[in-house]
């Protein structure tokens, strides 16, 4: 490998006055600091990164091609494998986009259940993000504390969906199953013990001198740059841009909940840490409100062309059996049209652009993966930093390769 193989040129004036010989360093695709199968090709001048070339695609499964050959509901398990740290958020984002084409408005109970599940996923994903970020900065204790809490959310997911990570919880027009009895009480109990435990994590590291020294003023992204590079979610808000799709285009009835959107000031790694910490607390706020006003009623829309009939009817009535068979084999009847929907996921805005030609199978599904966009900005962010800062910056951006490579 030599420097001529780099995709992008070196930023002007970076190594000015330096006489060091350039060296090419290859990190990954299997390396603990790259959080998955990311391969980073760095050009170094001594300790200074002069060029960065992230190489992705090691986890490419052709999900967009697969989607064109499966019915809408069959594709939902594939969305679990996008951002596998917050699978329910992906399920919901996909279902919301399809419902947008079909003009389906889900029931109030379904909305509230989706909100609780999504916000739990957000905490869950942020806990992993914070844990590995802390570990990249040298704090092993925070990792263990975060994973203890995450394990409790995993147990809640298991009670709700039957699976810890591959939840496949949403369906077009509703949910795979209603909330089990007593589950809301368990979520409430989790929230009650979570906030003090989270304060403990906060005290462990947020004012830690070593951590601040390693993150303050490192990986600075200005608001202008963040918008230009299409960053979204906590990475964008860390740079001081108050764009949160839950506030700006309230889907799932987010307008009924009271919550704040934390933003950073400097756009450095430390600000991104603070934004994620605060988002976890805001999520607890949303969950508590959703539990309080959880409406009764059905969790699926009653549209026989879209949702499956209740199981007890399928086993007794011929018509419902036929209906069940048709929806399960041909997929939900979605009219012709196209829609783009972005959901504010823990990693950023996960967008689906779906073209329907009026069948149970989509004609084209484009997945806008926030991690892909985040990594595309690395060629711009990493140069000019020291090699030792690279893992910290990567940790602060919180990406997932399953989503990036699709």
């Amino acid at each position: 490998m030599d420097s001529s193989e780099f995709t992008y040129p070196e930023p002007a004036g970076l190594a000015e006055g330096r006489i060091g010989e350039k060296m090419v360093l290859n990190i990954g695709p299997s390396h603990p600091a790259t959080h998955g199968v990311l391969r980073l090709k760095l050009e170094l001048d001594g300790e200074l990164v002069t060029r960065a070339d992230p190489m992705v695609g090691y986890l490419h499964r052709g999900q967009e091609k697969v989607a064109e050959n499966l019915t809408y509901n069959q594709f939902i398990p594939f969305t679990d494998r996008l951002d596998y740290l917050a699978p329910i958020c992906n399920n919901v984002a996909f279902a919301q986009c399809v419902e947008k084409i079909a003009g389906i408005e889900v029931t109030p109970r379904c909305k509230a259940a989706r909100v609780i599940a999504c916000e739990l996923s957000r905490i869950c994903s942020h806990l992993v993000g914070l844990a590995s970020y802390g570990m990249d900065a040298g704090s092993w204790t925070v990792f263990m504390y975060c994973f203890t809490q995450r394990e409790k959310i995993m147990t809640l997911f298991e009670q709700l969906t039957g699976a810890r990570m591959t939840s496949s919880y949403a369906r077009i027009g509703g949910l795979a199953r209603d909330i089990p009895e007593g589950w809301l009480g368990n979520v409430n109990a989790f929230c009650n013990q979570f906030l003090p435990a989270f304060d403990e994590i906060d005290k462990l590291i947020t004012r830690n001198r070593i951590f601040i020294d390693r993150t303050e003023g490192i990986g600075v992204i200005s608001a202008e740059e963040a918008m230009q590079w299409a960053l979204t979610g906590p990475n964008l808000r860390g740079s001081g841009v108050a764009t949160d799709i839950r506030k700006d285009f309230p889907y799932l009835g987010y307008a009924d909940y009271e919550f704040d959107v934390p933003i950073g000031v400097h756009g450095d790694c430390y600000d991104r840490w603070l934004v994620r910490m605060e988002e976890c607390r805001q999520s607890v706020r949303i969950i508590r409100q959703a539990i309080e006003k959880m409406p009764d009623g059905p969790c699926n829309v009653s549209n026989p062309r879209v949702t499956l009939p209740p199981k007890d009817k399928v086993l007794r009535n011929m018509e419902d059996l036929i209906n069940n068979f048709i929806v399960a084999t041909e997929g939900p009847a979605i009219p012709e049209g196209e829609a783009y929907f972005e959901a504010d996921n823990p990693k950023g805005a996960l967008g689906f652009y779906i073209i329907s030609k009026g069948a149970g199978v989509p004609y084209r599904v484009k997945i806008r993966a926030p991690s892909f966009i985040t990594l595309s900005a690395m060629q711009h962010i990493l140069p000019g930093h020291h090699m030792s800062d690279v893992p910290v910056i990567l940790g602060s951006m919180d990406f997932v390769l399953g989503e990036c490579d699709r």
Partner: protein
Amino acid sequence: MNRKNIAEELSFLKPRATSDGMAAFDCPPDRLLEAARALKERFECQTLTDIASVDMGLSAGEGRFGCVYHFFSHTKKFYVRLAAMCRSAAEPRLPSLTGVYPSADWLEREAFDLMGITFDGHPRLRRILMWEGYPYHPLRKDFPLAGLPAPLPDTFEGNEDATKVVPAPEEGGPFHSASESSGFSPQREPRSWEGKPGGR
């Protein structure tokens, strides 16, 4: 309001039917760059959020390939969709937006890789998700779901032991890969769009 303003100022854009109520327009490919500049400078669309490459199938003739762009304004909070279809199906080309929006960089590389659309003016148009040297563009509608046999990269660069890459076995399941011995059979495709309206 924004929809009207954009349609008035950029008269070459034609309104496009949508199901989601977004301001959507069809844009001639040679004026795409002009439209993107105008959106950024005059309509405060700071972000290009997504580029979706589309293949409308062999029946669409020369205008088969294209891209659907989504722009977002952080200050005014609205999305704009522009669809630009390439003029030629044999050699699909579109102007690159990398000079206006840096985020177009990887998105265009992805469209080039998976759909085979060339972006004029992109600084380094390379494959991104598939490996360098892969001969096909898998998101095209005439590419079979089961895949086509393709040479694997022999070794990966910098691998001094020259370990051979051996493909993983893909036997069983609906996504059966067409091996060279069995040959490709279209019957194995779960669903095919071409020639069968409705998808089955």
